[in-house]
Protein backbone atom coordinates (compact mmCIF):
# COMPACT_ATOMS: atom_id res chain seq x y z
CA UNK A 1 0.00 0.00 0.00
CA UNK A 2 1.49 3.29 -1.04
CA UNK A 3 1.43 6.43 1.04
CA UNK A 4 -1.39 8.15 -0.85
CA UNK A 5 -3.74 5.20 -0.33
CA UNK A 6 -2.86 5.19 3.34
CA UNK A 7 -3.54 8.90 3.61
CA UNK A 8 -6.87 8.53 1.80
CA UNK A 9 -8.00 5.82 4.19
CA UNK A 10 -6.93 7.84 7.19
CA UNK A 11 -8.89 10.78 5.77
CA UNK A 12 -11.95 8.58 5.29
CA UNK A 13 -11.56 7.29 8.83
CA UNK A 14 -11.59 10.81 10.24
CA UNK A 15 -14.47 11.95 8.06
CA UNK A 16 -16.58 9.02 9.24
CA UNK A 17 -15.64 9.71 12.85
CA UNK A 18 -16.35 13.42 12.69
CA UNK A 19 -19.65 12.82 10.88
CA UNK A 20 -20.69 10.36 13.57
CA UNK A 21 -19.76 12.83 16.30
CA UNK A 22 -21.77 15.58 14.59
CA UNK A 23 -24.79 13.37 14.01
CA UNK A 24 -24.73 12.12 17.59
CA UNK A 25 -24.55 15.60 19.03
CA UNK A 26 -27.37 16.74 16.73
CA UNK A 27 -29.50 13.78 17.72
CA UNK A 28 -29.02 14.53 21.37
CA UNK A 29 -30.51 17.89 20.47
CA UNK A 30 -28.85 20.11 22.97
CA UNK A 31 -25.47 19.81 21.32
CA UNK A 32 -23.37 22.90 20.97
CA UNK A 33 -23.24 22.52 17.18
CA UNK A 34 -26.87 23.36 16.82
CA UNK A 35 -27.59 26.97 16.03
CA UNK A 36 -30.56 27.83 18.08
CA UNK A 37 -33.25 30.17 16.91
CA UNK A 38 -35.90 31.61 19.12
CA UNK A 39 -36.31 33.72 22.22
CA UNK A 40 -36.11 33.05 25.94
CA UNK A 41 -38.70 33.47 28.66
CA UNK A 42 -38.37 32.90 32.38
CA UNK A 43 -40.57 30.41 34.23
CA UNK A 44 -40.40 30.70 38.05
CA UNK A 45 -41.32 27.72 40.22
CA UNK A 46 -41.07 26.90 43.91
CA UNK A 47 -39.25 23.73 42.88
CA UNK A 48 -37.99 22.53 39.52
CA UNK A 49 -38.17 18.85 40.57
CA UNK A 50 -36.19 16.87 38.00
CA UNK A 51 -36.36 19.51 35.26
CA UNK A 52 -33.00 19.91 33.53
CA UNK A 53 -31.59 21.72 30.51
CA UNK A 54 -32.70 20.12 27.27
CA UNK A 55 -36.12 19.04 28.53
CA UNK A 56 -39.10 19.86 26.34
CA UNK A 57 -41.39 22.86 26.56
CA UNK A 58 -44.86 22.04 25.22
CA UNK A 59 -47.78 24.30 24.46
CA UNK A 60 -51.01 22.28 24.53
CA UNK A 61 -48.92 19.14 24.06
CA UNK A 62 -47.01 20.45 21.04
CA UNK A 63 -43.27 20.88 21.48
CA UNK A 64 -42.46 24.56 21.13
CA UNK A 65 -39.01 24.76 22.71
CA UNK A 66 -36.71 23.44 25.37
CA UNK A 67 -35.31 24.28 28.77
CA UNK A 68 -32.12 26.25 28.21
CA UNK A 69 -30.90 26.52 31.77
CA UNK A 70 -32.04 26.35 35.36
CA UNK A 71 -31.03 28.71 38.14
CA UNK A 72 -31.87 30.11 41.56
CA UNK A 73 -32.92 33.76 41.63
CA UNK A 74 -34.72 35.94 44.16
CA UNK A 75 -35.42 33.07 46.48
CA UNK A 76 -37.09 30.95 43.84
CA UNK A 77 -36.09 28.45 41.20
CA UNK A 78 -36.20 29.65 37.62
CA UNK A 79 -36.13 27.78 34.36
CA UNK A 80 -35.05 29.77 31.33
CA UNK A 81 -37.06 28.44 28.41
CA UNK A 82 -35.95 28.75 24.80
CA UNK A 83 -39.10 29.11 22.70
CA UNK A 84 -38.98 28.43 18.98
CA UNK A 85 -39.15 31.42 16.70
CA UNK A 86 -42.69 32.12 15.51
CA UNK A 87 -44.30 30.58 18.58
CA UNK A 88 -46.09 32.99 20.89
CA UNK A 89 -47.07 32.03 24.43
CA UNK A 90 -50.32 33.75 25.55
CA UNK A 91 -50.11 35.84 28.70
CA UNK A 92 -52.88 33.84 30.37
CA UNK A 93 -51.22 30.52 29.55
CA UNK A 94 -50.07 28.73 32.72
CA UNK A 95 -47.07 26.45 32.83
CA UNK A 96 -46.61 23.41 35.08
CA UNK A 97 -43.82 20.87 35.36
CA UNK A 98 -45.27 17.58 34.14
CA UNK A 99 -43.86 14.10 33.99
CA UNK A 100 -43.52 12.29 30.68
CA UNK A 101 -43.97 8.96 32.48
CA UNK A 102 -43.66 7.35 35.86
CA UNK A 103 -39.91 7.14 35.48
CA UNK A 104 -39.61 9.45 32.55
CA UNK A 105 -38.27 12.93 32.20
CA UNK A 106 -40.04 16.12 33.15
CA UNK A 107 -41.18 18.82 30.79
CA UNK A 108 -42.80 22.24 31.07
CA UNK A 109 -46.39 22.09 29.87
CA UNK A 110 -48.37 25.21 28.99
CA UNK A 111 -52.12 25.27 28.41
CA UNK A 112 -53.33 26.86 25.21
CA UNK A 113 -54.56 30.14 26.76
CA UNK A 114 -56.18 32.92 24.73
CA UNK A 115 -54.06 34.76 22.18
CA UNK A 116 -56.35 37.77 22.61
CA UNK A 117 -54.91 38.19 26.12
CA UNK A 118 -51.57 39.17 24.57
CA UNK A 119 -48.31 37.26 24.38
CA UNK A 120 -45.29 36.94 26.63
CA UNK A 121 -42.49 39.19 25.32
CA UNK A 122 -38.89 38.10 24.88
CA UNK A 123 -37.23 37.83 28.28
CA UNK A 124 -40.62 38.10 29.99
CA UNK A 125 -41.90 35.96 32.82
CA UNK A 126 -44.58 33.40 32.15
CA UNK A 127 -47.37 32.41 34.52
CA UNK A 128 -46.68 29.16 36.35
CA UNK A 129 -48.17 27.03 39.06
CA UNK A 130 -46.80 24.14 41.07
CA UNK A 131 -48.41 20.76 40.48
CA UNK A 132 -48.34 17.89 42.93
CA UNK A 133 -45.52 15.58 42.05
CA UNK A 134 -45.40 11.83 42.36
CA UNK A 135 -43.76 11.98 45.77
CA UNK A 136 -46.58 14.12 47.19
CA UNK A 137 -49.20 11.84 45.67
CA UNK A 138 -47.45 8.77 47.03
CA UNK A 139 -47.20 10.42 50.44
CA UNK A 140 -50.94 11.15 50.38
CA UNK A 141 -51.61 7.60 49.27
CA UNK A 142 -49.48 6.37 52.16
CA UNK A 143 -51.55 8.40 54.64
CA UNK A 144 -54.72 7.13 53.01
CA UNK A 145 -53.50 3.56 53.28
CA UNK A 146 -52.69 4.10 56.93
CA UNK A 147 -56.18 5.47 57.61
CA UNK A 148 -57.70 2.58 55.66
CA UNK A 149 -55.66 0.13 57.67
CA UNK A 150 -56.82 1.72 60.92
CA UNK A 151 -60.44 1.61 59.76
CA UNK A 152 -60.08 -2.04 58.78
CA UNK A 153 -58.50 -2.75 62.15
CA UNK A 154 -61.42 -1.12 63.92
CA UNK A 155 -63.91 -3.07 61.82
CA UNK A 156 -61.96 -6.25 62.50
CA UNK A 157 -61.95 -5.44 66.21
CA UNK A 158 -65.71 -4.92 66.13
CA UNK A 159 -66.25 -8.17 64.28
CA UNK A 160 -63.78 -10.28 66.20
CA UNK A 161 -63.17 -10.73 69.90
CA UNK A 162 -62.54 -7.52 71.82
CA UNK A 163 -59.31 -6.98 73.75
CA UNK A 164 -61.20 -7.55 77.02
CA UNK A 165 -62.48 -10.95 75.90
CA UNK A 166 -65.91 -9.63 74.98
CA UNK A 167 -67.45 -11.53 72.07
CA UNK A 168 -67.41 -9.82 68.68
CA UNK A 169 -70.27 -9.03 66.37
CA UNK A 170 -70.20 -12.35 64.56
CA UNK A 171 -70.15 -14.29 67.79
CA UNK A 172 -73.06 -12.27 69.12
CA UNK A 173 -74.97 -12.87 65.90
CA UNK A 174 -74.17 -16.56 66.06
CA UNK A 175 -75.40 -16.80 69.63
CA UNK A 176 -78.53 -14.83 68.77
CA UNK A 177 -79.33 -17.12 65.88
CA UNK A 178 -78.63 -20.31 67.79
CA UNK A 179 -80.68 -19.22 70.79
CA UNK A 180 -83.65 -18.12 68.69
CA UNK A 181 -83.53 -20.69 65.97
CA UNK A 182 -87.02 -21.98 66.86
CA UNK A 183 -88.53 -18.51 66.76
CA UNK A 184 -86.74 -17.67 63.55
CA UNK A 185 -88.04 -20.90 61.97
CA UNK A 186 -91.59 -20.08 63.09
CA UNK A 187 -91.26 -16.52 61.81
CA UNK A 188 -89.96 -17.76 58.51
CA UNK A 189 -92.82 -20.26 58.31
CA UNK A 190 -95.31 -17.48 58.97
CA UNK A 191 -93.66 -15.34 56.39
CA UNK A 192 -93.92 -18.18 53.93
CA UNK A 193 -97.65 -18.57 54.68
CA UNK A 194 -98.18 -14.86 54.23
CA UNK A 195 -96.33 -14.70 50.99
CA UNK A 196 -98.20 -17.80 49.72
CA UNK A 197 -101.51 -16.16 50.51
CA UNK A 198 -100.44 -12.93 48.90
CA UNK A 199 -99.36 -14.85 45.85
CA UNK A 200 -102.66 -16.71 45.61
CA UNK A 201 -104.59 -13.45 45.95
CA UNK A 202 -105.97 -14.03 49.42
CA UNK A 203 -106.52 -11.22 51.87
CA UNK A 204 -106.41 -7.50 51.29
CA UNK A 205 -102.75 -7.31 50.30
CA UNK A 206 -103.11 -10.37 48.10
CA UNK A 207 -106.06 -8.81 46.28
CA UNK A 208 -104.28 -5.54 46.08
CA UNK A 209 -101.30 -7.24 44.52
CA UNK A 210 -103.15 -9.65 42.24
CA UNK A 211 -106.56 -8.05 41.53
CA UNK A 212 -106.46 -5.04 39.20
CA UNK A 213 -109.95 -3.87 40.29
CA UNK A 214 -108.83 -3.64 43.93
CA UNK A 215 -105.90 -1.63 42.79
CA UNK A 216 -108.17 0.66 40.77
CA UNK A 217 -110.51 1.08 43.73
CA UNK A 218 -107.60 1.95 45.93
CA UNK A 219 -106.51 4.49 43.37
CA UNK A 220 -110.04 5.97 43.23
CA UNK A 221 -110.16 6.11 47.03
CA UNK A 222 -106.84 7.83 47.07
CA UNK A 223 -108.13 10.31 44.50
CA UNK A 224 -111.16 11.04 46.69
CA UNK A 225 -108.94 11.46 49.72
CA UNK A 226 -106.82 13.79 47.69
CA UNK A 227 -109.95 15.80 46.69
CA UNK A 228 -111.10 15.92 50.29
CA UNK A 229 -107.70 17.07 51.31
CA UNK A 230 -107.91 19.83 48.71
CA UNK A 231 -111.29 20.92 50.02
CA UNK A 232 -110.01 20.80 53.57
CA UNK A 233 -107.15 22.93 52.48
CA UNK A 234 -109.60 25.45 50.95
CA UNK A 235 -111.68 25.37 54.13
CA UNK A 236 -108.64 25.96 56.25
CA UNK A 237 -107.64 28.82 53.95
CA UNK A 238 -111.09 30.39 54.33
CA UNK A 239 -111.01 29.91 58.09
CA UNK A 240 -107.59 31.46 58.10
CA UNK A 241 -109.09 34.44 56.22
CA UNK A 242 -111.84 34.77 58.75
CA UNK A 243 -109.39 34.56 61.60
CA UNK A 244 -107.29 37.20 59.91
CA UNK A 245 -110.33 39.45 59.58
CA UNK A 246 -111.24 38.84 63.20
CA UNK A 247 -107.67 39.63 64.20
CA UNK A 248 -107.79 42.83 62.23
CA UNK A 249 -110.98 43.84 64.09
CA UNK A 250 -113.21 43.66 61.06
CA UNK A 251 -116.81 42.43 61.33
CA UNK A 252 -119.00 41.85 64.33
CA UNK A 253 -116.90 39.17 65.93
CA UNK A 254 -113.77 41.18 65.30
CA UNK A 255 -115.32 44.19 66.93
CA UNK A 256 -116.49 42.02 69.81
CA UNK A 257 -113.04 40.56 70.31
CA UNK A 258 -110.79 43.50 69.62
CA UNK A 259 -112.99 46.72 70.00
CA UNK A 260 -112.67 47.98 73.59
CA UNK A 261 -115.71 50.28 73.35
CA UNK A 262 -117.90 47.46 72.14
CA UNK A 263 -116.62 45.37 75.01
CA UNK A 264 -117.58 48.09 77.48
CA UNK A 265 -121.03 48.35 75.88
CA UNK A 266 -121.50 44.63 76.21
CA UNK A 267 -120.50 44.84 79.85
CA UNK A 268 -123.05 47.59 80.44
CA UNK A 269 -125.73 45.61 78.62
CA UNK A 270 -124.83 42.57 80.59
CA UNK A 271 -125.01 44.55 83.81
CA UNK A 272 -128.41 45.96 82.82
CA UNK A 273 -129.69 42.50 81.97
CA UNK A 274 -128.47 41.24 85.31
CA UNK A 275 -130.28 44.09 87.10
CA UNK A 276 -133.41 43.39 85.11
CA UNK A 277 -133.31 39.73 85.90
CA UNK A 278 -132.79 40.51 89.59
CA UNK A 279 -135.80 42.77 89.50
CA UNK A 280 -137.79 40.19 87.68
CA UNK A 281 -136.87 37.63 90.30
CA UNK A 282 -137.72 40.01 93.15
CA UNK A 283 -141.31 39.19 94.35
CA UNK A 284 -141.73 42.68 95.77
CA UNK A 285 -141.24 44.42 92.49
CA UNK A 286 -144.08 44.95 90.03
CA UNK A 287 -142.57 42.65 87.40
CA UNK A 288 -141.70 40.16 90.08
CA UNK A 289 -145.21 40.08 91.26
CA UNK A 290 -146.42 39.93 87.66
CA UNK A 291 -144.26 36.89 87.06
CA UNK A 292 -144.43 35.10 90.40
CA UNK A 293 -147.85 35.95 91.88
CA UNK A 294 -150.96 33.93 90.74
CA UNK A 295 -153.38 36.39 92.40
CA UNK A 296 -152.35 39.13 90.06
CA UNK A 297 -153.21 36.89 87.14
CA UNK A 298 -156.55 36.13 88.64
CA UNK A 299 -157.15 39.88 89.32
CA UNK A 300 -156.20 40.64 85.77
CA UNK A 301 -158.55 38.02 84.45
CA UNK A 302 -161.39 39.44 86.63
CA UNK A 303 -160.61 42.96 85.47
CA UNK A 304 -160.60 41.88 81.89
CA UNK A 305 -164.00 40.24 82.28
CA UNK A 306 -165.33 43.49 83.79
CA UNK A 307 -163.86 45.44 80.94
CA UNK A 308 -165.49 43.06 78.52
CA UNK A 309 -168.87 43.56 80.04
CA UNK A 310 -168.42 47.34 80.15
CA UNK A 311 -167.49 47.33 76.48
CA UNK A 312 -170.54 45.32 75.70
CA UNK A 313 -172.69 47.97 77.62
CA UNK A 314 -171.02 50.78 75.75
CA UNK A 315 -171.81 49.17 72.47
CA UNK A 316 -175.47 49.18 73.42
CA UNK A 317 -175.41 52.92 74.38
CA UNK A 318 -173.35 53.95 71.38
CA UNK A 319 -176.07 55.45 69.10
CA UNK A 320 -177.72 57.48 71.93
CA UNK A 321 -174.39 58.95 72.86
CA UNK A 322 -173.67 59.85 69.29
CA UNK A 323 -176.97 61.74 68.99
CA UNK A 324 -176.26 63.57 72.21
CA UNK A 325 -172.89 64.64 70.95
CA UNK A 326 -174.26 65.90 67.70
CA UNK A 327 -176.99 67.83 69.54
CA UNK A 328 -174.49 69.48 71.80
CA UNK A 329 -172.52 70.53 68.80
CA UNK A 330 -175.47 72.06 67.06
CA UNK A 331 -177.06 73.83 69.97
Amino acid at each position, binding site marked *: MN*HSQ*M*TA*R*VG*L*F*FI*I*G*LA*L*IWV*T*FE*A*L*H*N*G*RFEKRKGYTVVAPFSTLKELKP*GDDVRLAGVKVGSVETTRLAEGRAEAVLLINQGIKIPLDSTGVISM*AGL*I*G*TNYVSFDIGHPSAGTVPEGGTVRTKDAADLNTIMSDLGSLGKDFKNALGQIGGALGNGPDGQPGLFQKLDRLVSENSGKISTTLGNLEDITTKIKSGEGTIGKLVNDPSAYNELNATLAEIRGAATEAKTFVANAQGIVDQVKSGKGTIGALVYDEEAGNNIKIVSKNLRDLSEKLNNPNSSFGQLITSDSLVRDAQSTLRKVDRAVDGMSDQGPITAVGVVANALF
Partner: protein
Amino acid sequence: MKQLNAIFEGLGSAILLTTRAFATLPSAPRIIKRVVEQVFYGGYGSLPIISILSFFIGAVLALQSGISLQNFGAKQLIGTLVGESLVRELGPVMVAILLAGRVGSATTAELASMKVYQEVDALVTMNIPPERFLVLPRLLAVLLYMPVLTIIAIVIGWLGGAVICNYVTFIGVEPAQYFQSMKQFLTTHKMVDGLVKSEIFGFCVILIACNTGLRTRGGPREIGHAVTRAVVFALITILVLDYFITKAQA
Protein backbone atom coordinates in the same frame (compact mmCIF):
# COMPACT_ATOMS: atom_id res chain seq x y z
CA MET B 1 10.42 -3.12 47.84
CA LYS B 2 12.18 -3.85 44.59
CA GLN B 3 8.87 -4.06 42.75
CA LEU B 4 7.65 -0.85 44.35
CA ASN B 5 10.86 0.81 43.25
CA ALA B 6 10.29 -0.53 39.72
CA ILE B 7 6.78 0.97 39.68
CA PHE B 8 8.04 4.39 40.74
CA GLU B 9 10.89 4.14 38.25
CA GLY B 10 8.44 3.31 35.48
CA LEU B 11 6.15 6.17 36.48
CA GLY B 12 9.02 8.65 36.59
CA SER B 13 10.41 7.54 33.24
CA ALA B 14 6.93 7.80 31.69
CA ILE B 15 6.60 11.38 32.89
CA LEU B 16 10.06 12.21 31.57
CA LEU B 17 9.28 10.54 28.26
CA THR B 18 6.10 12.59 27.90
CA THR B 19 7.93 15.79 28.72
CA ARG B 20 10.70 15.07 26.25
CA ALA B 21 8.25 14.05 23.55
CA PHE B 22 6.12 17.16 23.86
CA ALA B 23 9.25 19.27 24.08
CA THR B 24 9.81 18.35 20.44
CA LEU B 25 6.30 19.44 19.50
CA PRO B 26 7.51 22.47 17.47
CA SER B 27 9.03 20.00 15.01
CA ALA B 28 5.70 18.20 14.66
CA PRO B 29 5.17 19.25 11.02
CA ARG B 30 8.22 17.17 10.16
CA ILE B 31 6.61 14.03 11.56
CA ILE B 32 3.14 14.40 10.01
CA LYS B 33 3.84 11.47 7.71
CA ARG B 34 4.64 9.26 10.68
CA VAL B 35 1.50 10.50 12.48
CA VAL B 36 -0.61 9.54 9.49
CA GLU B 37 1.03 6.10 9.46
CA GLN B 38 0.24 5.62 13.12
CA VAL B 39 -3.35 6.74 12.61
CA PHE B 40 -3.65 4.26 9.78
CA TYR B 41 -2.23 1.31 11.69
CA GLY B 42 -3.70 2.18 15.04
CA GLY B 43 -7.05 3.75 14.12
CA TYR B 44 -8.07 2.58 10.69
CA GLY B 45 -6.54 -0.86 11.25
CA SER B 46 -8.47 -1.32 14.49
CA LEU B 47 -11.78 -0.38 12.91
CA PRO B 48 -12.96 -3.88 11.86
CA ILE B 49 -12.31 -5.56 15.18
CA ILE B 50 -13.72 -2.64 17.12
CA SER B 51 -16.86 -2.62 14.95
CA ILE B 52 -17.48 -6.33 15.45
CA LEU B 53 -16.74 -6.17 19.14
CA SER B 54 -18.94 -3.08 19.72
CA PHE B 55 -21.85 -4.49 17.73
CA PHE B 56 -21.93 -7.62 19.85
CA ILE B 57 -21.33 -5.75 23.10
CA GLY B 58 -24.39 -3.58 22.32
CA ALA B 59 -26.38 -6.65 21.27
CA VAL B 60 -25.52 -8.63 24.40
CA LEU B 61 -26.19 -5.63 26.58
CA ALA B 62 -29.64 -5.17 25.02
CA LEU B 63 -30.37 -8.88 25.33
CA GLN B 64 -29.38 -9.06 29.00
CA SER B 65 -31.26 -5.85 29.76
CA GLY B 66 -34.32 -7.18 27.96
CA ILE B 67 -34.25 -10.43 29.94
CA SER B 68 -33.93 -8.53 33.23
CA LEU B 69 -36.21 -5.59 32.52
CA GLN B 70 -39.10 -7.58 31.06
CA ASN B 71 -39.67 -9.09 34.52
CA PHE B 72 -40.92 -5.74 35.78
CA GLY B 73 -42.26 -4.27 32.54
CA ALA B 74 -39.54 -1.72 31.90
CA LYS B 75 -38.41 -2.88 28.47
CA GLN B 76 -38.79 0.63 27.13
CA LEU B 77 -35.71 1.54 29.19
CA ILE B 78 -33.41 -0.80 27.27
CA GLY B 79 -32.41 2.07 24.99
CA THR B 80 -31.48 4.23 27.94
CA LEU B 81 -29.47 1.47 29.56
CA VAL B 82 -27.57 0.47 26.41
CA GLY B 83 -27.02 4.09 25.38
CA GLU B 84 -25.65 5.29 28.70
CA SER B 85 -23.58 2.17 29.32
CA LEU B 86 -21.85 2.42 25.97
CA VAL B 87 -21.29 6.16 26.12
CA ARG B 88 -20.03 6.45 29.66
CA GLU B 89 -18.31 3.15 30.29
CA LEU B 90 -18.23 0.29 27.84
CA GLY B 91 -17.32 2.29 24.73
CA PRO B 92 -14.18 3.99 26.11
CA VAL B 93 -13.06 1.02 28.20
CA MET B 94 -13.50 -1.61 25.50
CA VAL B 95 -11.78 0.51 22.88
CA ALA B 96 -8.90 1.16 25.29
CA ILE B 97 -8.55 -2.55 26.10
CA LEU B 98 -8.55 -3.41 22.40
CA LEU B 99 -6.00 -0.68 21.82
CA ALA B 100 -3.80 -2.09 24.57
CA GLY B 101 -4.05 -5.57 23.07
CA ARG B 102 -3.63 -4.67 19.43
CA VAL B 103 -1.68 -1.40 19.20
CA GLY B 104 -0.04 -1.24 22.60
CA SER B 105 1.49 -4.71 22.30
CA ALA B 106 2.70 -4.01 18.76
CA THR B 107 4.21 -0.70 19.83
CA THR B 108 6.03 -2.26 22.77
CA ALA B 109 7.29 -5.10 20.61
CA GLU B 110 8.52 -2.70 17.93
CA LEU B 111 10.26 -0.30 20.30
CA ALA B 112 11.68 -3.13 22.42
CA SER B 113 13.12 -4.74 19.32
CA MET B 114 14.63 -1.44 18.23
CA LYS B 115 16.08 -1.01 21.70
CA VAL B 116 17.42 -4.55 21.92
CA TYR B 117 18.89 -4.39 18.43
CA GLN B 118 20.36 -0.93 19.17
CA GLU B 119 18.36 0.89 16.52
CA VAL B 120 17.40 3.41 19.16
CA ASP B 121 21.04 3.95 19.94
CA ALA B 122 21.65 4.49 16.24
CA LEU B 123 18.96 7.18 16.16
CA VAL B 124 20.59 8.88 19.12
CA THR B 125 23.93 8.65 17.36
CA MET B 126 22.37 10.34 14.34
CA ASN B 127 21.07 13.08 16.66
CA ILE B 128 17.49 12.03 16.11
CA PRO B 129 15.72 12.07 19.43
CA PRO B 130 13.82 8.78 19.74
CA GLU B 131 11.07 10.68 21.68
CA ARG B 132 10.41 12.84 18.61
CA PHE B 133 10.83 10.13 15.99
CA LEU B 134 9.19 7.18 17.78
CA VAL B 135 7.02 8.46 20.65
CA LEU B 136 5.52 11.81 19.63
CA PRO B 137 3.90 10.53 16.39
CA ARG B 138 2.26 7.70 18.31
CA LEU B 139 1.01 10.02 21.07
CA LEU B 140 -0.35 12.60 18.61
CA ALA B 141 -1.91 9.87 16.52
CA VAL B 142 -3.67 8.26 19.48
CA LEU B 143 -5.03 11.63 20.57
CA LEU B 144 -6.46 12.06 17.08
CA TYR B 145 -7.96 8.66 16.41
CA MET B 146 -9.13 7.67 19.88
CA PRO B 147 -12.30 9.87 19.91
CA VAL B 148 -13.12 8.72 16.40
CA LEU B 149 -12.69 5.06 17.28
CA THR B 150 -14.76 5.54 20.43
CA ILE B 151 -17.67 7.28 18.73
CA ILE B 152 -17.71 4.63 16.00
CA ALA B 153 -17.70 1.92 18.67
CA ILE B 154 -20.52 3.63 20.55
CA VAL B 155 -22.74 4.12 17.50
CA ILE B 156 -22.18 0.56 16.26
CA GLY B 157 -22.97 -0.69 19.77
CA TRP B 158 -26.23 1.29 19.73
CA LEU B 159 -27.10 -0.26 16.38
CA GLY B 160 -26.36 -3.73 17.76
CA GLY B 161 -28.77 -3.08 20.62
CA ALA B 162 -31.40 -1.75 18.22
CA VAL B 163 -31.13 -4.86 16.04
CA ILE B 164 -31.62 -7.11 19.07
CA CYS B 165 -34.56 -5.04 20.33
CA ASN B 166 -36.24 -5.22 16.94
CA TYR B 167 -35.65 -8.84 16.01
CA VAL B 168 -35.67 -10.74 19.30
CA THR B 169 -39.29 -11.70 19.82
CA PHE B 170 -39.58 -11.55 23.59
CA ILE B 171 -38.03 -8.06 23.71
CA GLY B 172 -39.99 -6.53 20.86
CA VAL B 173 -39.01 -2.89 21.27
CA GLU B 174 -39.32 -0.75 18.15
CA PRO B 175 -36.08 1.00 17.07
CA ALA B 176 -37.89 4.36 17.27
CA GLN B 177 -38.84 3.70 20.88
CA TYR B 178 -35.35 2.38 21.61
CA PHE B 179 -33.67 5.52 20.33
CA GLN B 180 -36.32 7.77 21.88
CA SER B 181 -35.71 6.32 25.34
CA MET B 182 -31.96 6.64 24.73
CA LYS B 183 -32.38 10.29 23.80
CA GLN B 184 -34.46 11.04 26.88
CA PHE B 185 -31.61 10.50 29.30
CA LEU B 186 -28.50 10.92 27.19
CA THR B 187 -26.91 14.34 27.02
CA THR B 188 -23.95 15.75 25.16
CA HIS B 189 -22.31 16.27 28.53
CA LYS B 190 -22.23 12.50 29.06
CA MET B 191 -20.97 12.00 25.53
CA VAL B 192 -18.13 14.47 26.10
CA ASP B 193 -17.32 12.70 29.37
CA GLY B 194 -17.00 9.41 27.50
CA LEU B 195 -14.78 10.89 24.80
CA VAL B 196 -12.51 12.58 27.35
CA LYS B 197 -12.19 9.29 29.19
CA SER B 198 -11.22 7.49 25.98
CA GLU B 199 -8.59 10.14 25.20
CA ILE B 200 -6.98 9.64 28.61
CA PHE B 201 -7.07 5.86 28.27
CA GLY B 202 -5.58 5.91 24.78
CA PHE B 203 -2.81 8.30 25.77
CA CYS B 204 -1.91 6.18 28.81
CA VAL B 205 -1.91 2.92 26.83
CA ILE B 206 0.45 4.27 24.17
CA LEU B 207 2.65 6.00 26.75
CA ILE B 208 2.99 2.77 28.75
CA ALA B 209 3.73 0.83 25.57
CA CYS B 210 6.40 3.29 24.40
CA ASN B 211 7.96 3.61 27.84
CA THR B 212 8.06 -0.15 28.41
CA GLY B 213 9.53 -0.71 24.95
CA LEU B 214 12.22 1.91 25.30
CA ARG B 215 13.18 0.64 28.76
CA THR B 216 13.74 -2.91 27.56
CA ARG B 217 17.14 -4.29 28.33
CA GLY B 218 18.72 -7.60 27.35
CA GLY B 219 18.02 -9.95 24.47
CA PRO B 220 15.04 -11.13 22.37
CA ARG B 221 13.44 -12.91 25.33
CA GLU B 222 13.08 -9.55 27.02
CA ILE B 223 10.98 -8.35 24.10
CA GLY B 224 8.25 -10.84 24.91
CA HIS B 225 8.41 -10.03 28.60
CA ALA B 226 8.22 -6.33 27.82
CA VAL B 227 5.09 -6.86 25.69
CA THR B 228 3.41 -8.88 28.40
CA ARG B 229 4.35 -6.35 31.04
CA ALA B 230 3.14 -3.43 28.94
CA VAL B 231 -0.25 -4.99 28.18
CA VAL B 232 -0.89 -6.06 31.76
CA PHE B 233 0.16 -2.71 33.14
CA ALA B 234 -1.96 -0.90 30.54
CA LEU B 235 -5.04 -2.97 31.44
CA ILE B 236 -4.57 -2.32 35.14
CA THR B 237 -4.04 1.38 34.47
CA ILE B 238 -7.20 1.55 32.36
CA LEU B 239 -9.39 0.03 35.04
CA VAL B 240 -7.86 2.01 37.92
CA LEU B 241 -8.06 5.27 35.98
CA ASP B 242 -11.63 4.43 34.96
CA TYR B 243 -12.69 4.45 38.59
CA PHE B 244 -11.09 7.79 39.37
CA ILE B 245 -12.19 9.49 36.15
CA THR B 246 -15.77 8.29 36.61
CA LYS B 247 -15.74 9.55 40.18
CA ALA B 248 -14.36 12.89 39.05
CA GLN B 249 -17.01 13.19 36.33
CA ALA B 250 -19.92 12.19 38.57
